[in-house]
């Protein structure tokens, strides 16, 4: 009986998790294509420019994305045998790209975002209970610059 419940939960969370992930990746790609002409760079700490500057703004974007029961379950095996944990790679990827996109969407009218940085943390990992389903929190931040025309 217990096994049946576990199998059912696994089946259900596998379906929901993969549908949600697929849709999310699709949306991320669409939004990235829409923003392709707005550059984001991770340099510019010592920015020097001859252009006239209209506006300087600090922009951030944040998101919390959770893994699912199924991913957590299969990753336990992967952790045992070693190797790439593809299910968690996609989770981190989604969180970071989503945070980045939210930041860029806030700075839609700016010409460039310089010194973009990403910060991430896990919200759900204790040392005592390492069987928790991971939740990734990502913050993206940078300086949006608008030039005078």
């Amino acid at each position, binding site marked *: 009986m217990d096994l049946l419940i576990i199998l059912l939960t696994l089946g259900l969370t596998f379906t*929901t998790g993969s549908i*949600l992930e697929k849709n999310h990746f699709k949306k991320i790609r669409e939004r990235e294509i829409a923003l392709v002409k707005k550059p984001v760079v991770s340099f510019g700490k010592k920015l020097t420019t001859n252009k006239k500057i209209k506006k300087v703004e600090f922009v951030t974007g944040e998101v919390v994305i959770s893994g699912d029961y199924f991913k957590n379950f299969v990753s336990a095996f992967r952790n045992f045998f070693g190797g790439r944990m593809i299910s968690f790679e996609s989770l981190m990827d989604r969180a970071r790209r989503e945070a980045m996109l939210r930041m860029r969407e806030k700075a839609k009218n700016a010409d460039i975002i310089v*010194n973009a940085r990403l*910060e991430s943390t896990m919200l759900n990992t204790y040392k005592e209970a390492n069987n928790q389903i991971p939740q990734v*929190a990502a*913050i993206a931040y940078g300086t949006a610059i608008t030039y005078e025309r």
Partner: protein
Amino acid sequence: MILTNIESVPGMKITGHYGMVSGSTVRAKNFVKDFGAGLKNMVGGELKSYTELLEDSRKEAIDRMKLQAEKVGANAIINVRFATSAITSGAAEVYAYGTAVKVQPIEG
């Protein structure tokens, strides 16, 4: 108050330094939302209530940092950075820090 995370404010020159300023906040959601997030945690996807929590925390940390900078008489904060940590599940700390400076526009 102008905030940047680069070492200058483009189009302005720095006339005074006031040292480092920082602001931090630890926030938690109520148990109802924690329960909802727990369910969402099983199926996967974005945890919207936690995203809001993170947004609020970030705003508050920045506000506290700004307040500190205003007190010392600065009008801009440069080189702003974030550090985050998870205290317990359902609570997040956001720490913002930067250097308070006085800037004025470059003429000509």
